[in-house]
């Protein structure tokens, strides 16, 4: 059964990924991406990576994509038509990516490895978290710090944006460089 699920969800994931990058409207691509993430979560499940599957849905599909949609809405519709890049550039680009894929595939196909049996609690939340909080405790704390910094950054950006509305005094003695720099400092 596991094979069946893999092919099912795999192909759907690939198709939705393709659609994500080809849709003109960012919102539709966002939705397709969410759908792709759901499929991936399913794939995780087939690999009995239960915690990851759940997290995938929760964080990627839930948090990040929602944020994307929010920002997309916030920024308003871009009526720009995504015209196709000129054929030569497109060709070269695809060729390069194809070459990368080919190279990786050579590596991947270098042997067929079947999945052996794995213990029942493989991928469960206890096992992962026990490992996480033992060997990778320091890294875990760092991740926390990372997220805090990201949050503070985002807040800061947003706050200045709010402050921007009122007349701001440029800091005395700021180097009067070319106009472009002055303009950025104001924002």
């Amino acid at each position: 059964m596991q094979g069946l699920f893999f092919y099912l969800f795999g192909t759907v994931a690939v198709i939705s990924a393709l659609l994500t990058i080809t849709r003109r409207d960012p919102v539709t691509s966002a939705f397709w991406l969410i759908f792709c993430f759901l499929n991936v979560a399913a794939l995780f499940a087939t690999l009995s990576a239960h915690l990851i599957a759940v997290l995938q849905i929760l964080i990627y599909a839930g948090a990040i994509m929602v944020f994307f949609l929010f920002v997309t809405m916030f920024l308003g519709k871009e009526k720009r038509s995504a015209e196709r890049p000129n054929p030569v550039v497109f060709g070269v680009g695809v060729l390069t990516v194809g070459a990368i894929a080919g190279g990786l595939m050579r590596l991947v196909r270098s042997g067929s490895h079947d999945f052996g049996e794995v213990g029942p609690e493989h991928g469960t939340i206890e096992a992962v978290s026990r490992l996480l909080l033992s060997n990778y405790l320091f890294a875990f704390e760092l991740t926390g710090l990372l997220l805090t910094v990201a949050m503070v950054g985002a807040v800061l950006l947003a706050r200045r944006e709010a402050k921007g509305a009122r007349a701001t005094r440029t800091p005395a003695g700021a180097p009067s460089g070319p106009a472009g720099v002055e303009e950025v400092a104001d924002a």
Partner: protein
Amino acid sequence: MHESTEILRWIVALPLIGAALNGFLNRRLPEAVVSAIGIGSVAVSFGLALKAFFLLRALPAEGRILHDFVYQWIPVGDLQVDVGFTLDPLSGAMLLLVTGVGLLIHIYSSGYMHSDGGFGRYFAYLNLFVFSMLILITADNLLLLFVGWEGVGLCSYLLIGFWFHEIANSAAGKKAFIVNRIGDFGFLIGIFVIVRALMGHVDEGANILAFSTMAEHADLLAPVATLAGLLLFVGATGKSAQIPLFVWLPDAMAGPTPVSALIHAATMVTAGVYMMARMSFLYDLTPVALSVVAVVGALTALFAATIGLAQTDIKKVLAYSTVSQLGYMFLACGVGAYGVGIFHVLTHAFFKALLFLGAGSVIHGMHHEQDMRQMGGLRKYMPLTFMTMMAATLAIAGIFPFAGFFSKDEILYKAWLQSPALWLVGFLAAGLTAFYMARLMAMTFFGECRAPDETKRHLHESPWSMVGPLVVLGILSLVGGWMGWPEFLGGSNAIHHWFAPVFEHGAAHGVAATEVVHLVEGGAAEGGHSVALEWTLAFLSLGWAALGLFGGFFVYLKRPDLPGRAQQWVSGIPHRLIENKYFVDEIYDAVIVWPIHRLSETFLWRVVDAGIIDGLMVNGVGRFVGLVGQLLRLVQNGLLRWYAYSFATGVLVIVIYVARHYTG
């Protein structure tokens, strides 16, 4: 086998001291003191020279060498060169000549250069010249001789360009120095050839280039003798103004006249002859080189004599006459008669110095007018100058009792013995000599005075300080020849015996010696027939000289129009040819000077240096690096997606490497 003495170094050093004194203090000393120093130093040197001469005479004939070792100059590897002076009959005679005639000319100069701005500088240079010439004569090795050789070249440069406010004078000086340098280039290579041949075989510590050492190892020199001889002769042609390097001497007349007398008549120009005589042991080994020398000498004699015919500047005539007479000397050396060559050097010094000094007093009287066409009938105004110059003219023409007859006739005789063709060339040149000297005397002293009357009023005999030396030289021109009174006229030919020990080794080798064993020693049959030969040759040249003189006077006094008509008759080409010195200078310029200048100006400097090396390679690399920089700059174009793509290519490279590396 030689007497070591201290006297020689003083003879040489005195003029240097005089030069140094005058040189450093020339502005601050009054003229009298300067001339006193100048003349005094040469006079004392002359006195010492006389003393040394008699010291030399006292020695037995074979051992007649005084040696004075001063210090070791260049002690390098196989080459040991010392500073040492020798006096043997050859250099003894030359020593007396240089110091004696030098003294007379110094005295003459004090009058001639009176109230000239650079009086002190002039005497300093003149003394320096005598110093260098003395080194050249008394040097005991070829390298020290070369030092004197270039030293006199330097002094002639300084003295020719003495009145340097005229750019032409300094250009003439430069020309003289450079042409001499070209000759010295040959001389230098000659020295190298000799050292290379001798190196390694001469015992350690011996002075390779000393004449005595070289003479001893003459056999080693045999293989390279011709090459060395010719190379040294190249140096001699440079210094003694033979074809092809004679072009500097006529221009050297730009210097003050006493300078011309001393340097370009009596002493410096004869350095080449002295060198050949000194190196006679080498030249005797190579008949090839000797014949080259003889031919060049004869040709120069004739060639210069023809040019002398057409010159209007009195000093230029004398200059070409000197070149011609030098040709005779080299002819003598060329036929192996070095002694006769030197004898002619001595006699020539007397009458040519007199001619130049006489010309100087004429120019002095005519207020620096040198063109003979402006002169005429000066014998009334300058009787003493006229008489002494007439004596010299008779001497140079080779009229019997005068000095020229004995030395020139001896040369022609020796030339006849070697090859009648050479004799014929010499003989023709002798006739031309008589003719142009007569022309000179006729145009200057006879006929009506063509000078502008303003100068006519000032015409007067030169002061005693100038005329005194003229008289002394006049007497010498008469008496000078008697020391070489030939046997067939009953004389003892003292000069020949005096030089015999120096050149005798030549005979010992029996290679090219054509020394005629003179009658007194009861020579072989060939001696008998030669007396008659000598008589005939003597009469022939005497008659020919008289004819030349008479022709000259006749043409330029009785029929002044004749030269003009002669020109038309020969359609003027030959005349213009010899008047412009066969355009030799112009040819040299066109063939050598201009191409080298063009080559180095446009090609070497512009194209090669600035163009290829600097432009292309050095700055070229700079520009290339700049270009590459520009290209690389395009990569940073600010397009985010371009950066993404470059990431992708980076990944691709890694993937390819990993794929290729790990799959195997």
